[in-house]
């Protein structure tokens, strides 16, 4: 498409496309296309003027060539991206605000007096009605205060003040609504654009394909811990499905053949084969928005505290106004006192601070589902870490396969890999990868695979019962025996690795030594967390005692619990909470879900299972633990900002009230100062914290 450069500085380009205007779809598609070009840091597309602003660090010539070769007729963007577009919403709100401003000043300049007065009366009635409606609730609320102020102004023929007041209140309301809606849709966008690959069943085989290739009528296999990627009907299998993202129910429901399932829900137990009825663009974004808005998660304690406090201050403001009127008989002064109300400032500044912090967290690839959790992170004194995949690299590697039944180590690895293939666990991935590196093909040698959470996998190979799992699972639960004469070799297994035990037919067949290196920067992160005031850092793992102790010592962790079952993790968290601690749980696996729910703030690392990500209150999109330190700092700064805002608002407004009561400030000025300080605080609250 033809384009000209309107403005350029090194690294930033604004181009105008040879069109008068772009539709929302075209703008979104262009944005998607430009943002995916290599070397492009950020893109902003203005649909009204068909302009695009591009920040880039790549070669200028290449960028210009790419822009020139963009063909809007051919270009397509994935439906999920188009669905999750916030463009129309943003355009609508901008228009509302600009229209408000223009109409307000336009009315003053253009309309004749009587008409203006009529309009003012009309609008005033709306506010009066809103205020009167709160009286039956037997609580004095802000709306009543506003109604009184506006009513008093209008009755004393001060239409100018009444107009200004109503204008500011309307603008404030619109801004608050816009900020709220925008944050909700930003959050939903982060959450909805996630599922990328699914297991498609064709005939007897399963293949991992891109979600974009699935069509209606395809069969998709969904296993434990995975997200159901599309709306569909269960063709085979039975499972407990967690539908919290759709209906908000935390209790899973049983789904079997013939029943329908929804995109975005998670399989907690069992597995399903689903026949897809609606492909991508099945309204997942809308469902998530619905879920977020329905959930109570958005309100933070600090926030609601501020709001109820605001309402509690109303009687004092009313009393102050009445007092002023009695003492001075000047209605305007009394109105001035009414105008300086704490609540509108509080109601504007607090939600804006929280939502802005959530958005800033998003820019660090941290998805926070509610202000309440930032508050919990700030106040936490205990952090519980899961080991595998959280503190250790998400890519453990198989070091050695020790055969115990005389069979070739490679054969055993092949069998192990074909069992481990289906599960979203980092250790399972390690086994599969090791087999792939040795070029071991493994078509489905086994019958159906049963996954026992946190313990292992059970199946049948060539008629014999095959098991892979932890020591607890293999030896204690299933009673596997070490073959004759191999006991010495067994005791001689080197320390320092995480062993995975593979048993066939009741006898130990092999031990796979898995090396689980600690993430770089983990020690630094733990130290930083200690410095930020988290006194107690705990590591819990299902792994062996030896490995756990070794890792804990190298990282500086305060408390270690090894060979732990999932229920124990949750129980530990609950115990700590009962003792008065505020606990953050950081985990990545399915078996962390109960603990994640129990903690004050549950943090899921993104490379983990879908279920953990859904249940968690906060999701960290990156692999390194620095993000958790950043999260803690962000939360503390947010809390500091909220307290600062609160003191500022009470302080400034009380001063204004006293000044206008004393007659030092004329009422118009005090109202102006109140509004200006409110707006300034609101704007300041949108700035970055870190």
């Amino acid at each position, binding site marked *: 498409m033809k384009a000209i450069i*309107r*403005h350029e*500085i*090194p*690294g*930033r380009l*604004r181009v105008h496309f040879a069109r008068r205007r772009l539709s929302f779809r075209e703008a979104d598609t262009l944005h998607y296309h430009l943002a995916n070009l290599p070397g492009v840091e950020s893109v902003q597309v*203005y649909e*009204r*003027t068909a*302009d695009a*602003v591009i920040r880039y660090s790549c070669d200028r010539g290449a960028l210009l060539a790419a822009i020139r070769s963009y063909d809007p007729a051919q270009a397509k963007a994935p439906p999920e991206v188009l669905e999750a577009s916030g463009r129309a919403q943003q355009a609508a709100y*901008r*228009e509302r605000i*600009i*229209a408000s401003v*223009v109409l307000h000043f336009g009315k003053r300049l253009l309309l004749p007096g009587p008409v203006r007065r009529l309009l003012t009366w009309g609008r005033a009635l709306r506010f009066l009605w809103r205020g009167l409606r709160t009286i039956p609730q037997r609580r004095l609320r802000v709306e009543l205060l506003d109604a009184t102020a506006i009513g008093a102004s209008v009755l004393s023929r001060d239409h100018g003040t009444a107009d200004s007041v109503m204008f500011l209140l309307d603008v404030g309301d619109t801004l608050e609504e816009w900020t709220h809606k925008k944050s909700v849709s930003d959050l939903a966008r982060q959450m909805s654009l996630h599922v990328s690959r699914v297991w498609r069943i064709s005939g007897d085989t399963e293949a991992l394909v891109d979600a974009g290739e699935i069509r209606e009528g395809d069969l998709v296999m969904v296993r434990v811990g995975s997200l159901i990627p599309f709306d569909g009907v269960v063709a085979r299998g039975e499972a407990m499905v967690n539908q919290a993202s759709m209906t908000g129910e935390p209790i899973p429901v049983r789904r079997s053949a013939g029943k329908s399932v929804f995109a975005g829900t998670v399989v907690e137990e069992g597995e399903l084969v689903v026949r897809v009825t609606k492909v991508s663009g099945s309204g997942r974004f809308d469902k998530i928005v619905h879920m977020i808005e329905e959930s109570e998660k958005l309100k933070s304690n600090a926030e609601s505290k501020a709001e109820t406090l605001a309402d509690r201050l109303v009687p004092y403001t009313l009393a102050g106004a009445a007092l002023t009127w009695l003492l001075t008989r000047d209605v305007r002064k009394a109105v001035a006192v009414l105008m300086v109300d704490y609540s509108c400032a509080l109601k504007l500044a607090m939600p804006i601070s929280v939502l802005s912090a959530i958005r800033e967290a998003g820019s660090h690839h941290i998805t926070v589902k509610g202000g309440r959790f930032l508050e919990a992170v700030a106040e936490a004194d205990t952090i519980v870490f899961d080991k595998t995949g959280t503190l250790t690299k998400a890519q453990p590697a198989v070091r050695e396969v020790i055969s115990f039944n005389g069979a070739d180590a490679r054969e055993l690895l092949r069998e192990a890999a074909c069992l481990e293939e289906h599960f979203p666990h980092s250790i399972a991935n390690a086994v599969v990868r090791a087999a792939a590196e040795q070029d071991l093909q493994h078509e489905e040698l086994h019958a159906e695979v049963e996954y026992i959470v946190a313990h292992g996998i059970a199946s049948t190979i060539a008629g014999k019962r095959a098991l892979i799992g932890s020591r607890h699972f293999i030896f204690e639960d299933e009673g596997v025996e070490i073959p004759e004469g191999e006991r010495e070799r067994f005791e001689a297994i080197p320390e320092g690795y995480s062993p995975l035990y593979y048993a066939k037919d009741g006898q130990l067949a092999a031990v796979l030594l898995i090396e689980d290196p600690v993430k770089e920067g983990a020690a630094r992160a733990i130290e930083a967390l200690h410095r930020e005031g988290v006194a107690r850092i705990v590591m819990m793992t299902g792994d062996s005692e030896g490995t756990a102790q070794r890792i804990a010592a190298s990282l500086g962790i305060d408390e270690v619990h090894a060979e732990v079952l999932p229920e124990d993790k949750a129980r530990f968290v609950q115990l700590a909470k009962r003792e008065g601690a505020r606990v953050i749980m950081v985990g990545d696996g399915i078996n962390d879900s109960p603990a994640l729910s129990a903690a004050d703030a549950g943090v899921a690392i993104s490379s983990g299972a879908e279920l953990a990500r859904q249940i968690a209150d906060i999701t960290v999109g990156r692999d390194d633990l620095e993000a958790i330190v950043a999260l803690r700092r962000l939360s503390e700064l947010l809390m500091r900002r909220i307290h600062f805002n609160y003191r500022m608002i009470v302080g400034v407004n009380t001063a204004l009230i006293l000044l206008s009561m004393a007659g030092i400030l004329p009422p118009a000025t005090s109202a102006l100062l109140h509004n200006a300080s409110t707006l300034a605080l609101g704007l300041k609250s949108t700035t970055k914290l870190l």
Partner: protein
Amino acid sequence: MDWGKRCGIFAAGLLFGTAGVRILVSRDAKKLYAHCTAAVLRAKDALMDQATVLQENCTDIYEEAKAINEEREAQEAAEEIEEEAETAA
């Protein structure tokens, strides 16, 4: 008010109530309203476009200003390093 005026006002009201309202809601009048509203909407669109252009230009100016300042600082830092190197040498 004298009798004549009262008659006049009554007549005006009658006229308005019958013919006047008819004219106001007639098809031609509606067309007029439609055209006027269309013009107002066009004006609103033009206003929005101008606001966008204003925003774009302001952002351009702001970014350029930042770039200029960064360059200045880089230059000053470079000069400092040169000076230090000279005095050290």
